């Protein structure tokens, strides 16, 4: 369990090839989300924050299926994805608490996580914004003669916005190496998908673009990884984009203060019975990777690590006042500090 303690996003990402680490990371995501909830109550978090507990298998299943070189765009509901991709708990928690230690130095907040070294572009707070950006990243990869791909992660509700349609069409006609991942957690904010979307499966929309699609059990990280591997391979072969729909569920409300009273009785309980952490843990016991009952120990260890990261965060200062003006344009930045995706 030492792997999780690495502070290098790249090392954390590479570690995900390890079976146990896959489980550990899902447990870590859950623990971080729970800690954020608490930090919110303790007054350390401003604005809003969008937890993704229940959706950990999607995050880890994606992250283990793509290279650190590949580019990822995702939404404000991005804590889990960021952690899975390799961003450290301290960098995630730090950003959410507005500290220098945060991945955007406390300037961005919960909706704007970023880590170029593992391909994570700043997560966007505007619905649909990440999809065309992923298309552009894919264009760049192709122009560089490189087999990198781009992944864009968004929700079921986001499949009703114009950018979804334009992006899928654009990627299809240009055969771009993009994987569009729709996390269908059945709700967009407080609205159940049936009330906003006249089809049950977002995946059917791929037909409008002559694009292959897949519908995946998003609670099973192995199934997620399997579907991703297929779509990623297709993209790398230059055959174009795929729309992959992950059927999943968020245990919490939409954002911090939402008690999610709009959910029908019993729905949450049914999903809890298929908890992604339990599903993988049971399988790992079968695989002899995890000892019977080892999950509890794992959880405790991870919780300790997250607690330590939290302590580190709470000791970290906020950004200096002159950070306000330091990253507006090249003129304000004191020289070019840009990340070069192609230097590796």
């Amino acid at each position, binding site marked *: 369990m030492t792997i999780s303690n690495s502070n290098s996003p790249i090392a954390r990402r590479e570690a995900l090839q390890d079976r146990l680490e896959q489980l550990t990371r899902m447990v870590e995501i859950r623990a971080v989300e729970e800690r954020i909830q608490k930090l919110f109550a303790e007054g350390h978090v401003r604005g809003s924050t969008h937890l993704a507990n229940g959706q950990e298998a999607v995050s880890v299943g994606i992250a283990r299926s793509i290279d650190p070189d590949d580019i990822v765009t995702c939404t404000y509901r991005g804590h889990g994805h960021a952690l899975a991709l390799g961003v450290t708990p301290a960098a995630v928690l730090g950003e959410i608490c507005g500290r220098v230690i945060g991945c955007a130095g406390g300037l961005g*907040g919960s909706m*704007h996580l970023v880590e170029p070294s593992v391909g994570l572009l700043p997560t966007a707070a505007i*619905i649909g914004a990440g999809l065309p950006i992923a298309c552009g990243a894919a264009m760049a990869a192709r122009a560089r003669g490189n087999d990198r791909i781009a992944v864009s992660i968004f929700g079921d509700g986001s499949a009703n*916005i114009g950018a979804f349609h334009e992006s899928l069409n654009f990627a299809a006609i240009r055969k771009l190496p993009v994987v569009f991942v729709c996390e269908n957690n059945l709700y967009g904010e*407080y609205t159940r998908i049936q009330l*906003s979307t006249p089809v049950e499966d977002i995946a059917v929309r791929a037909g409008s673009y002559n694009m292959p699609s897949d519908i995946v059990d998003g609670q099973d990280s192995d199934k997620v990884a399997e579907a991703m591997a297929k779509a990623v391979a297709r993209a790398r072969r230059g055959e174009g984009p795929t729309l992959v729909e992950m059927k999943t569920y968020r245990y919490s409300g939409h954002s911090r203060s939402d008690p999610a009273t*709009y959910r029908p009785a019993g729905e949450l309980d049914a999903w809890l019975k298929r908890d992604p952490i339990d599903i993988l843990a049971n399988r790992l016991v079968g695989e002899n990777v995890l000892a019977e009952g080892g999950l509890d120990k794992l959880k405790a260890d991870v919780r300790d690590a997250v607690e330590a990261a939290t302590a580190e965060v709470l000791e970290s200062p*906020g950004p200096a006042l002159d950070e*306000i003006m330091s990253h507006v344009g090249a003129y304000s930045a004191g020289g070019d500090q840009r990340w070069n995706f192609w230097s590796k």
Partner: protein
Amino acid sequence: MAKIWIRQAVLRALDDAMKDDPTVIMMGEDIAAAGGPFKVTEGLLAAHGPDRVIDTPISEMAFMGAAVGAAVCGMKPVVEMMFIEFIGVALDQLTTQAATMRYLSRGQLTAPLVVRASAGAGQGFGCQHSQMLDHWFRGTPGLKVAVTSNARTTYGLLRSAIEDPDPVVILEPRILYAEREEYEFDSSYRIPLGKAEIVRAGTDATIVTCGSMVRVALAAAESSKANIEVIDLLTLWPWDRKTVAESVGRTGRLVTLEEAPAGSGWGGDVVSHIAVEKFGSLKAPPHRITLPDAPVPYNGTLEARFLPSPAYVAEQVEALVSTNKSPAPWWRTAA
């Protein structure tokens, strides 16, 4: 007089407008069943039914455009943009379609819709959820823009906007929703669009401001040695040149207090107009207090510095009054 949350003033204005005019309908994301992300539409669905209080998919272009079509065909749609930034994916429908409807039909058709949006900074929503963005709308021929500043102006402006025969944008500073204040509803109360209000009389300088900065200006005036007049501009376009010019005529000094960077703030137009109208009679150069030219920071300390505080405003105005020179903003010296 009862204390209410300002969000209740929004709700009351919408509810009263729906009661008075059966053609008023509402559209937006989660405004109906959930009562609105900021709870400003709570109870409207129960009171007026799902044909009038409409939850939409996440499709700003569709529901903004549907508002245009419904307005042209005799309805009075009130659209909620949860955060004003979201209209960045649908601006065309408002500024290019709705605003030209009257012109392109030689007055036969109009699009009397209202776009209400929460706007502004101060709560840690980060740089994509914290702007005013009135510059996207201001000065568009055929479109009006107003900003609310308390329960009374919220009620008065919203009712007027809904009754207006042309499209109107109402920006509601989000930070005010959870403020409580004394306010007695009068369902006949209206604030005419295009009229500013002098909210504090003074003799040394006129602060022209709007939105959540009105509170800041008033607090600055309270604490200041200078005797400051404060104008709540209320409507940013078309704005009330007469009230501002008369006030500046009395005080001899104009200060704009804007929740926007200088490059896009409404103060440019105000200063450029008053500089002409009062040429040669001002005691000091007109002075603009704006945001720095930077995105809104998330961190609380930075965001608090980013926004003009009462102390900073008082300091700036006092410097202007005492030296008759424009004081520098903090961020030039800070960087």
